[in-house]
């Protein structure tokens, strides 16, 4: 296989505070192939947005990359000087953030923001850049783009603004887009439009996407592979269908059971006891062990590494081959968590 587009190796993101250093992202590794959509899910505080910010070089100080490497097409980009990183941002890596209103400057017209970005990264003339801006607005499905291009962000609705933000991210054909909760601020019917648009454009342009979201439904529809994060670490990573239908990590398994679904008539939802640990007191060993129904001594002592299981990887000692357990046995243990799990499976 060729070099993946993006490689993240042993990334650690730290926040030095007065009360000690907080580790927001703790030694994670993954990669994204060209044209692939990688979903990154997790609950608040899992470190998913931090990972995205680290890749694009927009960690808010005092946050910093403490160790690890980020490679774009084999070149390291995590240690570049600010100016060089600025050239990569926009041209090679685009970004879409949650709130379309704060990603756009309210004082500049949409057209000016688009042409400015295009001219920064290419050597188009202002006339060419403007023509390209109109073309982009048409591409993201904004009606009457010739007229809309001179309007200001407040004249656009939420869904339309997010389309503009997508146009901004795509305007110089980046290789990779970091989309951090791109549909969270939108209503469901608009959300569907935005997902469809993002999928279509990325396929047409061959752009890879790192899609950060807490919404499993969005991931299910959009991503090729998914990484599930918990307390700054990757719990499980694999093809999206595998992770959703055939979750291996006890956390993923519990998470899937806790999502209410139309058509599932369970009286009670499966629930994971407790809540995510604070960054100040992440437990020893596996970060999930105090909430895990299957934790044993080793889970409380040693932190599990990602172990290749079937098509994916999972960081759980149950799947450690030295214990002499087969994958099927380990999965049976995870699935045996409660009666509700069985009821759900039976419909």
């Amino acid at each position, binding site marked *: 296989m060729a070099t993946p587009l993006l490689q993240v190796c042993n990334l650690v993101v730290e926040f030095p505070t007065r009360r000690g250093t907080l580790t927001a992202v703790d030694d994670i590794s993954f990669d994204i192939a060209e044209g692939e959509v990688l979903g990154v899910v997790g*609950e*608040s505080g899992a470190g998913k947005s931090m990972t995205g910010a680290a890749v694009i070089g927009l960690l808010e100080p005092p946050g910093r990359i403490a160790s690890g490497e980020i490679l774009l097409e084999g070149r390291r980009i995590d240690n570049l000087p600010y100016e060089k990183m600025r050239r990569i941002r926009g041209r090679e890596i685009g970004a879409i953030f949650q709130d379309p209103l704060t990603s756009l400057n309210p004082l500049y017209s949409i057209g000016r923001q688009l042409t400015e970005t295009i001219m920064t990264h290419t050597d188009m003339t202002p006339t060419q850049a403007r023509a390209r801006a109109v073309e982009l607005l048409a591409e993201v499905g904004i009606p009457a783009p010739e007229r809309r291009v001179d309007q200001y962000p407040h004249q656009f*609705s939420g*869904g*339309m603004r997010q389309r503009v933000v997508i146009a901004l991210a795509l305007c110089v054909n980046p290789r990779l887009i970091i989309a951090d909760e791109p549909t969270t601020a939108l*209503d*469901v*019917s*608009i*959300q*569907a*439009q935005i*997902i*469809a648009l993002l999928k279509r454009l990325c396929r047409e342009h061959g752009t890879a996407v790192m899609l950060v979201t*807490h*919404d*499993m*439904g*969005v991931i*299910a*529809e959009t991503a090729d592979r998914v990484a599930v994060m918990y307390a700054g670490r990757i719990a499980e990573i694999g093809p*999206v*269908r595998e992770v*959703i239908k055939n979750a291996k990590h006890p956390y993923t398994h*519990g*998470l*899937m*059971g*806790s*999502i*209410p*679904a*139309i*058509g*599932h*008539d*369970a*009286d*009670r*939802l*499966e*629930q*994971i006891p407790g*809540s*995510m640990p604070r960054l100040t007191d992440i437990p020893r060993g596996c970060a999930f062990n105090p909430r895990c129904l299957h934790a044993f001594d080793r889970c409380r002592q040693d932190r599990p590494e990602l172990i290749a299981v079937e098509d994916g990887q999972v960081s759980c000692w149950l799947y450690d081959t030295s214990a002499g357990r087969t994958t099927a046995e380990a999965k049976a243990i995870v699935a045996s968590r409660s009666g509700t799990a069985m009821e759900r499976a039976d*419909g």
Partner: protein
Amino acid sequence: MAEAAKIHDPAASGTVLKVAGLKRYFDVSAPWLNRVLERQPRQILKAVDGIDLEIARGETFGLVGESGCGKSTVARLIVGLHGPTAGSIELEGRNIAGLSRKQMGPVRRRLQMIFQDPYASLNPRWRVRDIVAEPIRAFGLAADKAAVDRRVGELLEQVRLNPRDGEKFPHEFSGGQRQRISIARALASNPEFLVCDEPTSALDVSVQAQILNLMRDLQRDLGLTYLFISHNLAVVYHISNRVGVMYLGKMVEQAPAKTLFTTPRHPYTRLLLDTIPDLDMTGRERTPVGGEVPNPITPPPGCSFHPRCPFATERCRAEMPQPLAMPGGATVACHGVEEGRVPDGPVLAAPAAPKGVTSVHAPE
């Protein structure tokens, strides 16, 4: 059989809340001088424009819709945080619409609300025990301080918190725990009816599951009736007995939860159901329905959904549809359904075969 029917038949257990022709308009006009100088007309926002609903004792009525459809205004009208422009709200047969503050007092004891944001709805300077004790003191429900403390401890246990947590301040709790505190406060006055406005929208899914399970348990133990407002259809499906769908201040469809989700009739309900991303839909290509919710200040004439509706005709553009009773306890406000122009056919297959979820059809 008779016994079972009694439990499940809402009519037998009686109606707790009955809302008829409820309207709330907001005047959003520019100041008088601007209107005169710039010759602007008055602008009226019809946030809630004539809705009817009935909620039976012990049941959960789910209210869904996209932002700006008026569902939160309905919640605020029912608990009396807004006065209605027109219409009646009957709580156990007594009209509580437009009561004075003083008259509303005893009603409030029986009618409590849980808000969306557990970070904004708890006073950060109060200890949890004071937050939970406030309704007990306000309604004089306990004889002395010891009784108040006992009751607060009881309530905290009821929502699966430790009675000792009462000494802490809200900032020491996570979002899910704060929502438990809000629930304890709402239960403090022994209400019969809870209005829950997006109670789990600010929470992570695993915490949402804990809160939904807790609400189910409390409903069973205390015989509570819920009005549950959410934009999340799956949550509403999970928790509700009956569901109402709102669009631009109007109720477009109302039906038992199962019926609504298996055989949605109104084109808007179908659009909503068709657009929710589902775990079973990996890799599915969808054709999203275009358009957005129009500006509620200038809603389209006739049926307000017609600009986005694939079945719209001249009549839809001119005449406002009225709610029409359908078999199976549903009510639909749609000319197309009335005239039989909107083809029916299940959108969801039977719950026993979750595979069928993928077969959501796009109306041709």
